[in-house]
Protein backbone atom coordinates (compact mmCIF):
# COMPACT_ATOMS: atom_id res chain seq x y z
CA UNK A 1 0.00 0.00 0.00
CA UNK A 2 1.60 3.24 -1.12
CA UNK A 3 0.44 6.68 -0.06
CA UNK A 4 1.56 9.54 -2.26
CA UNK A 5 2.03 12.80 -0.37
CA UNK A 6 1.78 15.83 -2.61
CA UNK A 7 4.73 18.09 -2.93
CA UNK A 8 5.94 20.49 -5.54
CA UNK A 9 9.30 20.78 -7.23
CA UNK A 10 10.70 23.03 -9.94
CA UNK A 11 9.33 20.51 -12.44
CA UNK A 12 5.96 19.56 -11.00
CA UNK A 13 3.07 21.41 -9.40
CA UNK A 14 1.00 19.77 -6.65
CA UNK A 15 -1.57 18.59 -9.20
CA UNK A 16 1.10 17.41 -11.66
CA UNK A 17 2.51 15.21 -8.91
CA UNK A 18 -0.88 13.78 -7.99
CA UNK A 19 -1.67 13.10 -11.64
CA UNK A 20 1.66 11.27 -12.05
CA UNK A 21 1.02 9.17 -8.95
CA UNK A 22 -2.50 8.16 -9.99
CA UNK A 23 -1.51 7.50 -13.54
CA UNK A 24 1.33 5.30 -12.31
CA UNK A 25 -1.06 3.14 -10.28
CA UNK A 26 -1.00 4.68 -6.81
CA UNK A 27 -4.47 4.78 -5.28
CA UNK A 28 -3.96 6.66 -2.04
CA UNK A 29 -3.18 10.37 -2.10
CA UNK A 30 -2.57 12.87 0.65
CA UNK A 31 -2.80 16.54 -0.30
CA UNK A 32 -0.24 18.37 1.77
CA UNK A 33 0.29 22.09 1.15
CA UNK A 34 2.00 23.52 4.19
CA UNK A 35 2.09 27.29 4.03
CA UNK A 36 -0.73 27.59 1.48
CA UNK A 37 -3.80 29.66 2.27
CA UNK A 38 -7.14 27.90 2.71
CA UNK A 39 -8.30 29.43 -0.58
CA UNK A 40 -5.30 27.96 -2.42
CA UNK A 41 -5.79 24.67 -0.66
CA UNK A 42 -9.46 24.54 -1.65
CA UNK A 43 -8.73 25.35 -5.27
CA UNK A 44 -6.10 22.61 -5.58
CA UNK A 45 -8.09 20.26 -3.34
CA UNK A 46 -11.16 20.38 -5.56
CA UNK A 47 -9.09 19.34 -8.56
CA UNK A 48 -7.29 16.67 -6.55
CA UNK A 49 -10.62 15.24 -5.38
CA UNK A 50 -11.83 15.02 -8.97
CA UNK A 51 -8.63 13.29 -10.06
CA UNK A 52 -8.87 10.78 -7.21
CA UNK A 53 -12.52 10.08 -8.08
CA UNK A 54 -11.55 9.37 -11.66
CA UNK A 55 -9.09 6.71 -10.45
CA UNK A 56 -11.26 5.46 -7.57
CA UNK A 57 -8.47 6.51 -5.21
CA UNK A 58 -8.64 7.39 -1.53
CA UNK A 59 -8.15 11.11 -0.93
CA UNK A 60 -6.77 12.42 2.37
CA UNK A 61 -5.87 15.99 3.24
CA UNK A 62 -3.16 17.16 5.58
CA UNK A 63 -3.99 19.04 8.77
CA UNK A 64 -7.05 21.09 7.71
CA UNK A 65 -9.88 19.42 9.60
CA UNK A 66 -12.27 22.24 8.74
CA UNK A 67 -11.89 21.62 4.99
CA UNK A 68 -12.55 17.86 5.01
CA UNK A 69 -16.31 18.13 4.50
CA UNK A 70 -16.07 21.00 2.08
CA UNK A 71 -13.72 19.05 -0.18
CA UNK A 72 -15.46 15.72 0.30
CA UNK A 73 -12.12 14.24 1.36
CA UNK A 74 -12.07 10.66 2.62
CA UNK A 75 -9.94 11.66 5.55
CA UNK A 76 -7.38 13.88 7.18
CA UNK A 77 -3.82 13.36 8.35
CA UNK A 78 -2.84 15.04 11.60
CA UNK A 79 0.80 15.78 12.42
CA UNK A 80 2.18 16.24 15.89
CA UNK A 81 1.49 19.96 15.90
CA UNK A 82 -1.98 19.69 14.37
CA UNK A 83 -5.32 19.24 16.11
CA UNK A 84 -5.43 16.25 18.52
CA UNK A 85 -7.05 13.19 16.96
CA UNK A 86 -9.80 12.88 19.57
CA UNK A 87 -10.89 16.46 18.90
CA UNK A 88 -10.89 15.94 15.11
CA UNK A 89 -12.95 12.78 15.64
CA UNK A 90 -15.54 14.71 17.64
CA UNK A 91 -15.83 17.28 14.87
CA UNK A 92 -15.75 14.92 11.89
CA UNK A 93 -17.61 11.87 13.15
CA UNK A 94 -16.91 8.20 12.53
CA UNK A 95 -17.09 8.07 8.74
CA UNK A 96 -13.88 9.95 8.07
CA UNK A 97 -10.40 8.42 8.01
CA UNK A 98 -8.07 10.05 10.50
CA UNK A 99 -4.35 9.37 10.32
CA UNK A 100 -1.82 10.45 12.89
CA UNK A 101 1.94 10.96 12.88
CA UNK A 102 3.98 8.86 15.29
CA UNK A 103 7.65 8.53 16.13
CA UNK A 104 7.36 5.89 18.84
CA UNK A 105 5.19 2.99 19.97
CA UNK A 106 3.80 5.27 22.68
CA UNK A 107 2.59 7.73 20.02
CA UNK A 108 0.91 4.87 18.16
CA UNK A 109 -0.81 3.66 21.32
CA UNK A 110 -2.04 7.17 22.07
CA UNK A 111 -3.40 7.67 18.52
CA UNK A 112 -4.96 4.21 18.48
CA UNK A 113 -6.83 4.92 21.69
CA UNK A 114 -7.87 8.33 20.33
CA UNK A 115 -9.55 6.48 17.39
CA UNK A 116 -6.99 7.01 14.62
CA UNK A 117 -7.53 4.79 11.56
CA UNK A 118 -3.94 4.61 10.43
CA UNK A 119 -0.52 5.80 11.55
CA UNK A 120 2.25 7.48 9.61
CA UNK A 121 5.37 6.42 11.48
CA UNK A 122 8.73 7.97 10.81
CA UNK A 123 11.09 9.31 9.82
CA UNK A 124 12.81 6.25 8.44
CA UNK A 125 15.88 8.33 7.75
CA UNK A 126 16.92 11.95 7.42
CA UNK A 127 14.69 13.80 4.98
CA UNK A 128 14.82 17.20 3.40
CA UNK A 129 11.12 17.25 2.45
CA UNK A 130 9.94 17.98 5.95
CA UNK A 131 11.36 20.36 8.50
CA UNK A 132 11.19 19.82 12.23
CA UNK A 133 12.82 16.43 12.48
CA UNK A 134 12.27 13.77 15.08
CA UNK A 135 14.90 11.08 15.73
CA UNK A 136 15.22 8.66 12.82
CA UNK A 137 13.68 5.21 13.28
CA UNK A 138 15.46 2.95 10.81
CA UNK A 139 14.72 -0.71 10.08
CA UNK A 140 15.49 -1.95 13.57
CA UNK A 141 13.21 0.71 15.00
CA UNK A 142 10.30 -0.41 12.79
CA UNK A 143 10.93 -4.03 13.76
CA UNK A 144 10.68 -3.16 17.46
CA UNK A 145 7.69 -0.87 17.07
CA UNK A 146 5.72 -3.35 14.96
CA UNK A 147 6.44 -6.18 17.36
CA UNK A 148 4.97 -4.10 20.16
CA UNK A 149 1.96 -3.17 18.02
CA UNK A 150 1.32 -6.89 17.40
CA UNK A 151 1.80 -7.80 21.05
CA UNK A 152 -0.62 -5.07 22.06
CA UNK A 153 -3.15 -6.43 19.55
CA UNK A 154 -3.67 -3.05 17.86
CA UNK A 155 -5.37 -3.65 14.52
CA UNK A 156 -4.19 -0.38 13.03
CA UNK A 157 -2.21 -0.09 9.80
CA UNK A 158 1.14 1.60 10.27
CA UNK A 159 2.64 3.33 7.25
CA UNK A 160 6.35 4.13 7.16
CA UNK A 161 7.37 7.63 6.12
CA UNK A 162 10.37 9.86 5.81
CA UNK A 163 13.26 9.65 3.38
CA UNK A 164 12.28 6.24 2.00
CA UNK A 165 13.54 5.23 -1.45
CA UNK A 166 12.37 2.38 -3.65
CA UNK A 167 15.32 0.23 -2.56
CA UNK A 168 14.26 0.45 1.10
CA UNK A 169 10.70 -0.75 0.58
CA UNK A 170 11.08 -4.57 0.56
CA UNK A 171 13.04 -4.59 3.84
CA UNK A 172 10.65 -2.14 5.52
CA UNK A 173 7.63 -4.22 4.48
CA UNK A 174 9.26 -7.24 6.15
CA UNK A 175 8.88 -5.57 9.54
CA UNK A 176 5.09 -5.73 9.54
CA UNK A 177 4.65 -2.20 8.27
CA UNK A 178 1.43 -1.97 6.21
CA UNK A 179 2.51 0.59 3.68
CA UNK A 180 4.86 3.35 2.63
CA UNK A 181 4.23 7.07 2.30
CA UNK A 182 6.30 8.69 -0.41
CA UNK A 183 6.77 12.07 -1.94
CA UNK A 184 10.32 13.15 -2.70
CA UNK A 185 11.38 9.71 -3.94
CA UNK A 186 8.88 9.96 -6.77
CA UNK A 187 8.96 13.62 -7.76
CA UNK A 188 12.73 13.96 -7.58
CA UNK A 189 13.36 10.84 -9.66
CA UNK A 190 14.72 11.45 -13.17
CA UNK A 191 11.74 9.54 -14.49
CA UNK A 192 8.88 9.59 -11.96
CA UNK A 193 6.77 7.20 -14.00
CA UNK A 194 9.48 4.53 -14.08
CA UNK A 195 10.12 5.15 -10.40
CA UNK A 196 6.48 4.48 -9.51
CA UNK A 197 6.59 1.28 -11.53
CA UNK A 198 9.69 0.21 -9.64
CA UNK A 199 8.09 1.09 -6.32
CA UNK A 200 4.92 -0.87 -7.02
CA UNK A 201 6.73 -3.88 -8.49
CA UNK A 202 8.62 -5.30 -5.47
CA UNK A 203 5.39 -5.11 -3.48
CA UNK A 204 3.86 -7.35 -6.01
CA UNK A 205 3.48 -10.87 -4.76
CA UNK A 206 0.50 -11.43 -7.05
CA UNK A 207 1.63 -10.73 -10.60
CA UNK A 208 -1.78 -11.09 -12.21
CA UNK A 209 -3.21 -8.34 -10.02
CA UNK A 210 -0.13 -6.24 -10.40
CA UNK A 211 -0.53 -6.05 -14.11
CA UNK A 212 -4.06 -4.76 -13.78
CA UNK A 213 -3.01 -2.19 -11.22
CA UNK A 214 0.05 -0.97 -13.03
CA UNK A 215 -1.85 -0.82 -16.27
CA UNK A 216 -4.32 1.77 -14.83
Amino acid at each position, binding site marked *: MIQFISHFTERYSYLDGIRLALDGG*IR*WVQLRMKGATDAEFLRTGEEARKLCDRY*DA*TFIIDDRVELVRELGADGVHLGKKDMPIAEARRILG*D*DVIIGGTANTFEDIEMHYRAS*ANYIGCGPFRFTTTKEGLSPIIGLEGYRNIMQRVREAGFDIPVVAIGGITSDDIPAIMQTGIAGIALSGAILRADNPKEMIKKILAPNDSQPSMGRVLNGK
Partner: protein
Amino acid sequence: MQINVNNKPLSTTATSLGTLATELSLPEKGVAVAVNNKMVPRNLWEQTPLSEGMSVVIIKAACGG
Protein backbone atom coordinates in the same frame (compact mmCIF):
# COMPACT_ATOMS: atom_id res chain seq x y z
CA MET B 1 -9.23 -20.19 7.42
CA GLN B 2 -6.94 -17.77 9.17
CA ILE B 3 -5.82 -14.51 7.55
CA ASN B 4 -4.30 -11.32 8.92
CA VAL B 5 -6.26 -8.09 8.78
CA ASN B 6 -4.30 -5.02 9.80
CA ASN B 7 -1.74 -7.20 11.54
CA LYS B 8 -4.32 -9.07 13.59
CA PRO B 9 -5.33 -12.70 12.96
CA LEU B 10 -8.88 -13.15 11.72
CA SER B 11 -10.82 -16.37 11.17
CA THR B 12 -13.03 -16.14 8.12
CA THR B 13 -14.90 -18.32 5.67
CA ALA B 14 -14.54 -15.68 2.95
CA THR B 15 -12.65 -17.01 -0.05
CA SER B 16 -12.67 -13.72 -1.94
CA LEU B 17 -11.92 -10.15 -0.98
CA GLY B 18 -15.47 -9.26 -2.05
CA THR B 19 -16.99 -11.66 0.49
CA LEU B 20 -14.62 -10.43 3.19
CA ALA B 21 -15.64 -6.85 2.44
CA THR B 22 -19.27 -7.82 2.98
CA GLU B 23 -18.38 -9.73 6.14
CA LEU B 24 -16.58 -6.68 7.53
CA SER B 25 -19.27 -4.28 6.25
CA LEU B 26 -16.75 -2.12 4.44
CA PRO B 27 -18.30 1.18 3.37
CA GLU B 28 -19.03 2.09 -0.25
CA LYS B 29 -16.48 4.89 -0.43
CA GLY B 30 -13.19 5.97 1.01
CA VAL B 31 -11.67 2.56 1.63
CA ALA B 32 -8.23 1.47 0.53
CA VAL B 33 -7.48 -2.25 0.58
CA ALA B 34 -4.26 -4.13 -0.07
CA VAL B 35 -3.77 -7.89 -0.20
CA ASN B 36 -0.22 -9.08 0.42
CA ASN B 37 0.97 -5.49 0.07
CA LYS B 38 -0.72 -4.93 -3.27
CA MET B 39 -3.51 -2.42 -3.47
CA VAL B 40 -6.71 -3.86 -4.93
CA PRO B 41 -9.22 -1.47 -6.52
CA ARG B 42 -12.83 -2.05 -5.59
CA ASN B 43 -13.84 -3.36 -9.02
CA LEU B 44 -11.42 -6.28 -8.52
CA TRP B 45 -12.49 -7.24 -5.00
CA GLU B 46 -14.91 -9.98 -6.11
CA GLN B 47 -12.34 -11.69 -8.29
CA THR B 48 -9.48 -11.45 -5.79
CA PRO B 49 -9.11 -14.81 -4.03
CA LEU B 50 -8.11 -15.09 -0.38
CA SER B 51 -6.20 -18.02 1.03
CA GLU B 52 -4.72 -19.15 4.33
CA GLY B 53 -2.20 -16.78 5.86
CA MET B 54 -2.78 -13.88 3.49
CA SER B 55 -2.24 -10.39 4.79
CA VAL B 56 -4.97 -7.81 4.21
CA VAL B 57 -4.55 -4.12 4.99
CA ILE B 58 -7.65 -1.98 5.20
CA ILE B 59 -7.47 1.80 5.50
CA LYS B 60 -10.92 3.03 6.42
CA ALA B 61 -12.85 5.06 8.93
CA ALA B 62 -14.07 3.47 12.17
CA CYS B 63 -11.57 0.64 12.06
CA GLY B 64 -9.56 -0.17 15.14
CA GLY B 65 -10.89 2.85 17.00
